[in-house]
Structure formats: C-alpha cells, structure tokens
C-alpha cells in the first residue's frame, strides 16, 4: 500500500523525526490560510501517487499567500500521468545548507531490513550508488533485537559525515529503521533529508510503502492516525471486465480457486490452466511455439463444475478468442471429470461444439478415467501426464493455427 507525501510525512512525524510546518489542503482558500500561517515563501506540491511531479509542473514556489492560492488552484486541476491529485501540500520554503538521503529497504538475500544513507541527497539513490559508491553507507538491522542508535551512526559515518551533522542525523536514521519495522513497511525513504542553514535537520520529502499483507494489523496507523478509509486500497490498477467477472465467480463459491488476468494479452487462444507455476510455464510454452494467449488464468484446489464452467465461459466470451486450451500440471486433488464437465458445459451453453472449441485438454489428476469418458463422448482431444506441458501447449497452438489459416 502506497502513501501520499503528506501521509508519509505524518508517519515520519509520528516516529519523532522533525518535519517542517506543512499543511495538507484541498482548496485554494485552505492553501492561502496555511501560507498565511507559515508567513513566508512557500512550496506548493501536488499530492498524487506517481513520480515526475516537478517535471509535470506539480511543484510550484510562492512568495505570498495569494500566489500560493493561485498555484494551489492550478495544481489541484493538473493531472499527472493520468492521475488527479487528492490535494496539495503547502510547505515553508526551506533554507537548505545540504541535502542527505536516508532510507530503509528489504534485503531479500540477507532476509533483513537494510539501512541506507548518503550525503548526496535530493537525487535518485540508485544513481548515487552507481556513480559515487563511496557516498552511500549501508547496514542491516536485526528483525528481533532493538535497533541501536550506534547502528545508524556506523552507516552514516561510513559516508564520511562527522561533527554535529553525524550527531543530528543518527537518531533520524535510527527512528526511520524502527518505524520501517514497526509499521511493516516495504520502503521508507526521506529524500531529501535537509540540513537547514541554522544547522537543524528536517525531512523535506518522504516516501513510504506498506506491505499489503500487513494492512490488517496496522489499523491504528492507517485508520486512526492517517484517517485512511478501509476501501481506499491505493491500488491504481484498473481491472478489466474479464478480471472483475472471474473474481466475482471465484468469490461466489468457496470450492477451488480460479484467477484470470488479461492485462497485456490480446491473442486468440483462451487459456484455462493451472495453477501458479504451471500457469507461468504453460503461458510461456504457448508463446514460445508461436501461439497468442488471450489471457492468463489459474484453476485448482478442486473447483466445482460451476466455477470451472464460469472461468471457461469468461475466457470463451473474450474478444477474438477462437479456441480454448485446458491444461494443468499434475494436481492430484483436482478432479478431472469435474473440470471436464465445467468446460464442456461452458461450450454448450454458448452454442459452441466442445470438440471444435477445446483445442486440447491435459489434466493428469484424480478421477482421470471418468474425465476421459466425458471427453470421449464429446469428441474432445485430451492427454495425460505422458504428454509434457510443452507438447500439450504445442498441440493447442498447431490446432488454432490450422483453424485460422
């Protein structure tokens, strides 16, 4: 789950890290009032979940409250990468002496969070790591033991930072590491972390992402502190009709699991395949042999006839689909006869001949003999585990290409 900048700043603030006296505004009038309160030059920043704000004109500077209101009015109407902002952040224009970077990310190999610090802030950290590796300090933290300030200090000192700067930045990085762990973050970044002309440090921009699996146990932060509604998942992925329908069919019946995606697929061969790894393997096998999948899908966990039928119907009704291939890896608990009944029912209900419509049926699994009988009855071509996933996919591709030619 992603956060807007104003929320990320609030998270940082709650962890005891100093921030500027910023305000989140949804109208130009509010922006004017916040700018009056600040009483000096301000920065108006679009609150939108996408990068490239500065380039798109989503960040403007104002000398007076009137100017701030004007900029806010414009930015509130400005779409960036197709997204409308939820508001603007009005921030005092900081007198910056030096910009730093502080961040915490997961290191999957070490299976521990990794602290990162650089004295070259304000720019992309990956670029800094590539061009100036000696300006990036790194250090893992334990998942179990308390994070010590000294651990943050070591990371910062590794970049050559010393003096009062080291002593002021240390608790900030340590607090960032603690909030990363406490709040189930996937990413916690302060960039830039600014040293102001008076020597104090403030977080001028923050970027946070929480793991979706942990949203349920972070209610206090999400609902109470940040006021984010339960249905506001921040997922900007817009599911297709096909994806929505398959999801609804899956939710309507607890037996078995089906999934369907068609984002980026435009082919003529519908896939009813499963599960996880088998679906990845089969989708590749179809493409590598010149086939054009119309969708990705997963079916498994011994679904009901209705569920298998529902998925097959959705696939068959997609634009451009001429045939479907029903193929699975070895899944011992999914009954072949039930899947066979489901897909044949889907064909018949749509007025299609199963023998013509089903390019190939490969399901090794339970009740294979029953399944074969049904498939024989309707003249559907089928195979068992002796035909590999690759060959089954190849047979489906050959058939549809023969048909289209």
């Amino acid at each position, binding site marked *: 789950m992603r956060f807007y900048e104003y929320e990320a700043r609030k998270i940082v603030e709650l962890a005891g890290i100093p921030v500027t006296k910023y305000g989140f505004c949804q109208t130009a009038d509010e922006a004017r009032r916040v700018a009056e309160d600040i009483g000096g030059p301000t920065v108006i920043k679009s609150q939108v979940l996408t990068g490239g704000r500065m380039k798109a004109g989503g960040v403007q500077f104002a000398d007076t409250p009137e100017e701030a209101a004007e900029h806010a009015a414009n930015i509130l109407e400005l779409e960036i990468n197709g997204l409308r902002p939820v508001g603007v952040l009005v921030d005092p224009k900081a007198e910056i002496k030096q910009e730093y970077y502080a961040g915490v990310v*997961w290191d*999957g*190999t070490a*299976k*521990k*969070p990794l602290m990162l610090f650089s004295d070259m802030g304000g720019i992309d950290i990956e670029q800094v790591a590539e061009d100036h590796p000696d300006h990036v300090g790194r250090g893992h933290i*334990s*998942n*179990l033991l308390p994070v010590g300030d000294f651990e943050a200090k070591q990371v910062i000192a590794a970049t050559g930072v010393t003096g009062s700067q080291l002593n002021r930045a240390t608790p900030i990085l340590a607090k960032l590491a603690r909030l990363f*762990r406490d709040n*189930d973050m*996937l990413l916690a970044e302060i960039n830039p972390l600014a040293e102001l002309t008076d020597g104090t440090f403030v977080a001028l921009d923050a970027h946070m992402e929480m*793991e979706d*699996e*942990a949203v*349920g*146990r972070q209610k206090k932060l999400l609902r109470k502190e940040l006021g984010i509604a339960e249905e506001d998942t921040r997922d900007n*992925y817009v599911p297709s009709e096909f994806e929505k329908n398959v999801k609804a069919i899956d939710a309507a019946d607890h037996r078995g699991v089906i999934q369907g*995606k068609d*984002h*980026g697929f435009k082919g003529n061969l519908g896939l009813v395949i499963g*599960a*996880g*790894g*088998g*679906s*990845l*393997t089969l*989708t*590749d*096998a179809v*493409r*590598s042999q010149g086939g054009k*999948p119309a969708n*990705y899908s*997963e079916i*498994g966990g011994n679904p009901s006839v209705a569920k298998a039928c529902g998925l097959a119907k959705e696939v068959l009704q997609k634009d451009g689909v001429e045939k479907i291939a029903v193929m699975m*890896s*070895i*899944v*011992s*608990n999914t009954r072949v006869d039930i899947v066979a009944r489901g897909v044949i029912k889907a064909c018949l209900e749509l007025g299609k001949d199963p023998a013509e419509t089903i390019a190939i049926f490969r399901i090794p699994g*339970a009740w294979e003999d029953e399944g074969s009988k049904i498939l024989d009855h309707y003249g559907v071509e089928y195979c068992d*585990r*002796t035909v*590999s*996933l*690759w*060959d089954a996919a190849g047979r489906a591709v050959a058939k549809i290409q023969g048909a289209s030619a």
Partner: protein
Amino acid sequence: MSILLDKDTTFIVQGITGREAINLTRECLDYGSRIVGGVTPGRKGREVHGVPVFDTVAQAVENHGGPIDGSVVTVPPGFTKDAVIEAIANGIKLLVIVTERIPRGDVAEMVEFADMHGARIIGPNCLGLIVPGVCKMGGIGGPAKDAAKSYEPGVVGVMSRSGGMTTEISSSLTAAGLGVSTAVSIGGDAIIGSTYAELMPYFEADEQTKAIVIYTEPGGRMEAQLAEWKTENNSRLPIVAFMAGKFMDDEEMQGMSFGHAGTIVEGKEDSANEKIKRLEEAGIRVVERIDEIPDVVKERIEG
C-alpha cells in the same frame, strides 16, 4: 540417503485440526511418515487419523518422551510467527511452513530466530519436502498413491518455487528412470526460510544426489545467489534450471505479479532474462522447454 529428512524423522502438525491439515496428515501417514502429534490450542484430547492432538508443542514433546525433529505449520497467517517460535523454543529443528500471505517482517523474524537456534525453515507458502519411497513432510505430491506415481527414489535433487511444479518435474525425472533423491518445494514468497543456495550444501553432502534441477520464476535475487554459490564453491553437482514466466518481461506486464507473491519484479536484476543470463554465466544450464530436463540431466551426469 536424502537431505533433511529420513525414515526416522519424527514431526508434528501445528494446526492439525484444519481441513487442509487433516488431509496432509492422512497423506503423510499413508506415505510412511512418523507424525507423533498435532497441536491446536483448545483441542487437546482429540485425535486426527490416530494422531493425538495437544494444546501446546511442549505437551506433544512430553508425550513423545523425547525431542521431536520437525513440524509442519498450517496455522492462519496472523498466528504463524508465534507457532513457529513455539516449535523452535521446544527444540524442533525443521519447520515446514505451508501458510500463505504471511507479512515479510514476520517471516524474517522467524528466520532470524531459527538461525539463532540452529533450526531450518522451509517455506512459507510451500508444499514441503519428500524423500521418495521413504517419507514426506507436507502436502507435496498429494495422496500417497499419487505421490508414488510421480516420485521414485533416484539421483536428482529437486528445488522449486512452485509446489505443483516440484511434482511435475519430479514426475518427468521418474518417468525417465532418473528418479529423485529429495524434492523440496521451497515456497513462492519474496522472503523464504531456505533458498536454493542455502540448501545446496545439504545436496552436496548427500552421496545419492548426482545432479540438481531447479524451477525458478521472475522476482527476487535467489537465482543470482545460487549462481554466486556455484561459482564460489566449485560444486560437484551439475545444475539444470527451468525458468517460467518469461512473458512477464514484456513491457505491459511491468509491476504485476503472477502465480506467486514473490514474482513481483522490483528491479532490473529480477527479470527472467537477467536471471537466465546470470545462471548461465555460472555454468548452470537453463533449458527452454520443461520436457528437455530429463535428457539434459542425463547428459550432464554422464558428461
């Protein structure tokens, strides 16, 4: 021989009264595994297929009259961390975590705790491991009679990020007369207890194993880690890899995950093509077709 598991291995099932756990208990018992107890808090005194159920792991250990080797953990995601730590705190050294959708931080905590106590975690989001003809720990291979069809004892060690594909690949190795020494479904999440590279030393030490087959997917750095391990350790074992999900490298698929949570590509290094390149640089043969695996393994063993 085998890795991690043998005919004497004793284990418990945590969350044994759940629907999935009842099935896998039946399957494992039928296959010859020694399940010495089950744990579901509040259900002490019941039995699942003749296996006594306890409230705590400590009670199961006491009833057994000595240390228990392993545990299959099938409790809901919010309770998994506590269950795993309970098992390790009671002397259990091998954990198979079946549960899906456990937050990454919890997995990392469990792994660090296991490391501190000399315990090993397989999973989460996995089907466990099997020593063909001897025993299995988890739902891997399905019911005993189906597992017998797919798995025969042999010379190939199998590691896979997909539970289903562990069996698909093993079945083809069995059909080709090569058989399997031990097959491990390592789990489909971004952070797992045991990666390929972390299990390699066990296979390296196992005389029965003559070659390794891995099934891999986009996402994460596990394959790069294996490539580094292979280069640094001058391993005696030829490794053959199969990479699924190459279609995810397409422009339109960026940022999406398919099949398993761990397939989300977070950086350039995580893509299928980049991984294939790294594996091949380390002398690991990456096959294009899944059905090439048995022949390439034979070639590599003989060569």
